[in-house]
Each structure stands twice: as structure tokens, then as C-alpha cells.
């Protein structure tokens, strides 16, 4: 069984947000983590490896520094890693991103593709389902549980106030929720192994695809130029107003005031 997991390196907002003049994120200048939904997807894949001996390949489209995230995935237990990176691919919206990733996936073998539901930077939840459409695969999103039986994926899909049980013939694509599982940690020895291999530029550890390698990708579908949606404006979090400060002599008076305010504003 071969599993491809699409993962994205996203800004760790604890380190602050930095923008380029065109409104896109200056990812190179920010602290980065593996997107939480994607990490859950990777854990789901690793459980398929534990259960069936599946081969797990992680794939990311990003800056060269995304290699660090790929090493993290390998240290968690993934078998192979693919980095899709090229300046020509930068600034992509969800259409361009999904087109690019689909072109990369077409060069690989898979029985199931797992992506995260959405990334904490874009929050669109579009890329996973778009990849499935590009590849002509069924997509099941909001995966809460994933089982594989006799060539089928049996998935519990989260849905508002209920869930659906869906059975899909492989190959298919599912998008994972962070609530799907508790991802495992990395193993110390694997961190060392893969860092050493990447430093030695071992091509078997991380395969790199540039624009030129993606022969099924059209120019009009990649990069900033190939993005039908563009960021109109991006800014740091809007600071809240100073608010109203009041002071009372006793806690009882403070509480009475607070309760009145909360009730008047229909908070409670």
C-alpha cells in the first residue's frame, strides 16, 4: 500500500507575522511549523504503515526551508519525502497550488492521498478537494476516522451536528482534521539519520521537483501569474480598542456591574 501525505509548512504565529509588499506572506522570515491538520493526516498514514506496512511519502510545495519540515516528517516515520520548489511556483493561490501538487503527484504511485482539511495561514480548505478534482479522484473531507479494508477507505466524516460513514474505492483522497488523532513525536535516532542524509544531499531521502519536472502543469496554472485569486490586502491583527475601565470599591459592586453589562449586551 502506498500513501501520499500532502503537508504544508505554515507560519508559527508565536513568532510574529511578516508580509511582502504584494500582500503575500514573507515565509522565509517567519518561524515555521507543520500545519496541524496535515500532521494529523501524517499520523493517520503512519498508522496505516504500522498496520499494513504501507509506504508513506510526504510531499510539500514550498521554500527550500520546508526541508526542515520534511525531516520532521521522516523522523516521525515517513519513508520518503518530495519537495516541490521553484521561484516560478511562488505566490500561488489555491488553484495554482493544487494544480502544481497534482502535477507532482502524477509522477508518483499511490493508493490513497491524505491532506489536511485546511492550513492555518490560508484557512480556505480548498487545496485538498481541488487536488482530488485535478486527479479525478473521489474526495472525502473532514475525516474523523480512517480505516482501509479490502481496497476501500471507510471514513467517518464530520458534519455539523452528525457524522457520515462513507466507503470509497481506492484510490481516493481524504482531508484530515486535527482531531483525527494525537500525532506521534519524532524518534531521536531518525532525526540524526535524516539530518545527516539531507546534509549529504542524499537524493533518495528528499526528491526535489522543480517547475521543469512537472510536465503536466500548464504555465497558466502556476505561480502568482497563474492564480485567479489575489490577495487584496493583508495586515497584522487589528488591535482592539482600549475598552472601558471602571473601578469599584468592593468585589460585589464590580461583579454587579459586570453582570449588568454582560446581560445588556446579550452575552449571557
Amino acid at each position, binding site marked *: 500500500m502506498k500513501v501520499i501525505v500532502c503537508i504544508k509548512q505554515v507560519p508559527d504565529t508565536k513568532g510574529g507575522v511578516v508580509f511582502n509588499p504584494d500582500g503575500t506572506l514573507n515565509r522565509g522570515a517567519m518561524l515555521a511549523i507543520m500545519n496541524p491538520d496535515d500532521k494529523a493526516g501524517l499520523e493517520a498514514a503512519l498508522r496505516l504503515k504500522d498496520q499494513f506496512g504501507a509506504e508513506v511519502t510526504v510531499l510539500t510545495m514550498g521554500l527550500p526551508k520546508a526541508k526542515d519540515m520534511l525531516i520532521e516528517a521522516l523522523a516521525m516515520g515517513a519513508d520518503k519525502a518530495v519537495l516541490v520548489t521553484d521561484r516560478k511556483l511562488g505566490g500561488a493561490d489555491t488553484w495554482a497550488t493544487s494544480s502544481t501538487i497534482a502535477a507532482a503527484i502524477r509522477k508518483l504511485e499511490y493508493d490513497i492521498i491524505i491532506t489536511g482539511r485546511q492550513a492555518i495561514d490560508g484557512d480556505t480548505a480548498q487545496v485538498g478537494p481541488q487536488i482530488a478534482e485535478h486527479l479525478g479522484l473521489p474526495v472525502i473531507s473532514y475525516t474523523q476516522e480512517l480505516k482501509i479494508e479490502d481496497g476501500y477507505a471507510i471514513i467517518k466524516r464530520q458534519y455539523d451536528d452528525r457524522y457520515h460513514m462513507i466507503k470509497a474505492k481506492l484510490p481516493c483522497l481524504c482531508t484530515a482534521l486535527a482531531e483525527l488523532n494525537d500525532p506521534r513525536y*519524532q524518534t531521536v535516532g531518525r*532525526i540524526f539519520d535524516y539530518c545527516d542524509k539531507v546534509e549529504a544531499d542524499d537524493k533518495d531521502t528528499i526528491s526535489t521537483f522543480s517547475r521543469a519536472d512537472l510536465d503536466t502543469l500548464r504555465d497558466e496554472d502556476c505561480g502568482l501569474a497563474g492564480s485567479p485569486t489575489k490577495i487584496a490586502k493583508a495586515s497584522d491583527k487589528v488591535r482592539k480598542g482600549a475598552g472601558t475601565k471602571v473601578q469599584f470599591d468592593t468585589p460585589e459592586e464590580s461583579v454587579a456591574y459586570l453582570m449588568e453589562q454582560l446581560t445588556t449586551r446579550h452575552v449571557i
Partner: protein
Amino acid sequence: MDFGLDKKHEMARSLFREFAENEVKPLAQDVDETEQFPVETVKKMARYGFMGIPIPKQYGGQGCDILTYAMCVEELSKVCGTTGVIVSAHTSLCMDPILTFGTEEQKMKYLPKLASGEWLGAFGLTEPGAGTDAQGQQTKAVLEGDEWVLNGSKCFITNGKYADVYIVIAVTGKVEKRGKMMKEISAFIVEKGTPGFTFGVKEKKMGIRGSATYELIFQDCRIPKDALLGQKGKGFNIAMHTLDGGRIGIAAQALGLAEGALERTVDYVKERKQFGRTLAQFQNTQFQLADMATRCEAAQLLVYKAAKAKETQAQYGVEAAKAKLYAAETAMAVTTKAVQLHGGYGYIREYDVERMMRDAKITEIYEGTSEVQRMVISANLLK
């Protein structure tokens, strides 16, 4: 000279830190209150290779270095001194002597299971009459045919009763040295469950209360002839070598305790207000924190240097002694100051700093008291 860490060490540190914050910290207070050995935490650590960090891959270990192991103990100890010492005693005091002095058969028999965490290790040297004066050993091992027969007891043994494999130091006879009759001391590998090997008192301690500290009792305990570790008569050297490495682990534990206390204190003084200002705004607080931070960094440099020395030098006892001496005294000073800066709340068990202060004290004592470290350092200067 590059004082920075490379990527793999940074990633390893992040792993240890994340694990410590998420898996160890939430349990630390409870482990201390109940004095329960954190069995489940050890299993989790084993899963990620923490129980075999510096052991070569051919023996089932992670194939990393001493610095990585030291960082693991450091990060664990920032949140729980008990968990830090479990890893330290298991790695430095049990696996290291087997790796260094064991036969290939002994290494293959014990190291894979110890490094995977399936088995836990311990070290039995101390006796009621033999603490700093380790030569005061009374436990005897007598060769009868194909078996050694052990009689005696050990006290204050970390990981006692929970450990599966024990390195036990015992007297095997008398030898003449420089015209005097001295004890011949040897080292043995003893497995839990061997008939005649039982456990006595569990000590009630001031700190590291979740660490199991037991008495080991040997009554006509028969072990195979090949349970001898290293050469007969070389047990004292094996013990001293083992302690040299163990000191690096304990230095890392002390370092972690100091750093953890400093972190808690920085958070606290930013929040706590008196006289209309946060404690952090008072210059006295600022100066205290500056001193604490400087001492912690100095301790860290000594610990990391000692770890590198063990990797690259045949002899590293002096570096280890300096690291342990300074880190332990730093831990005591910094945790005590941390309690003081917390004021009344520093004395309350819900706040971690009082536990850290109680945990720190033992680092000045075990695996060689600070006095012993001073003996080692000065002897090297004056030779």
C-alpha cells in the same frame, strides 16, 4: 569555536522540549505528591528512543551522541527532576558500563533490551558503610564452581525495584597493593528475579520523590560466572569510570532544574504586582534574574563541554567534575532564589519552584558529593 548547535541537535532539543511540556510536565506535581514511579512516561520515552540515546545502532540504540543525551536529561528536568534522573541513571550508570566493559555476548544480551526501554537499568555501589568512601564495600561475591554467590546489601539505589538489570559492585577477595592488603573489588551484572536478590526499604526522600530509591539485598544470590563485568579486580575502576559519565547526566539534571526554575520565575515576576508595579519592574528583581541567568548559562557551557569531552577524550573526569560541581550548586542557588522571588507563593506546593528546590539538593550529593568533585578537580591541578 562555534557555540551554536547544528540542526540535528536543535531538532532533538525541540523534540525533548515538546515531549517534556506535553507529556511530563502535567504529571510532575502528582508524581511528587504520590511518590509514584512514572511507569507510563518511561514507556512513552522508550517509544521515541529516549532510553537509548547514545547507544550505537548495532546494539539497538539511537546512535546519537552524549550531548544529545545530556540535552534530553536537561529538558526533562526543566519540568520534572524525577523523570530526568530515571533516564540518567538508566543510561549512564547501567548501559554505559556494559557498553564500555562488557563482552560482545553481554552487550548483545543486555543493550538492545535496555536501549529500547523494554528493560530499565540501575547501579548498585553505595552501602550503609560505603558512600563517598566507596572502598568501604562489604558486599561479597565468592566464586563457587560456575557461579558467583553474592551476599550483602546496597542502599539508595535509583530505579531500584523497577529496574531489570543492575550493575553491582562487590568484594571478590584481597590483593596486595603497594605493600598493603586491599580489597579486590569487581563488577557484576545482576538481573531482577534472580533467587536471593530481593528489595528492602523504599526511601522517603526530600526530593525527586517519584524516583524509586531502594535497598538491594543479596542473600546467597547465585549468578552465572559470565555475569562478571570486565576483569576481576577492576570493579573499582569500572565504578569510577561509570560515575564520571553519570556526573554528566546529573549535571544535566541540575542544569535543567535551574533553567526550569528561572523560566517559572521570569513568568511569575511579570505577572505579580505589589506597590502598583510588577515585581519585574523592581531593579532588585532584575538584578537577581540577571545573576540567575548568567549562572545557568555558565553551567550549560560546562555541561555541554563535559559531554563533548566524553565523546572525544579518553579521560574526561575533570570536565565532568567541574560540570557537576557548578551545575549542582547553581541548581541549589537558582531554585532557592526562585522560591524567594515567588514570595509566599513560592512555598506553596501548587507552584513548581518549591519542588524544584527540593529536587535540586540531591544533585549536590549523589554520584559524588560536591566535596568529591572538588577533590577530583584539585587533584588534577596539583598532580
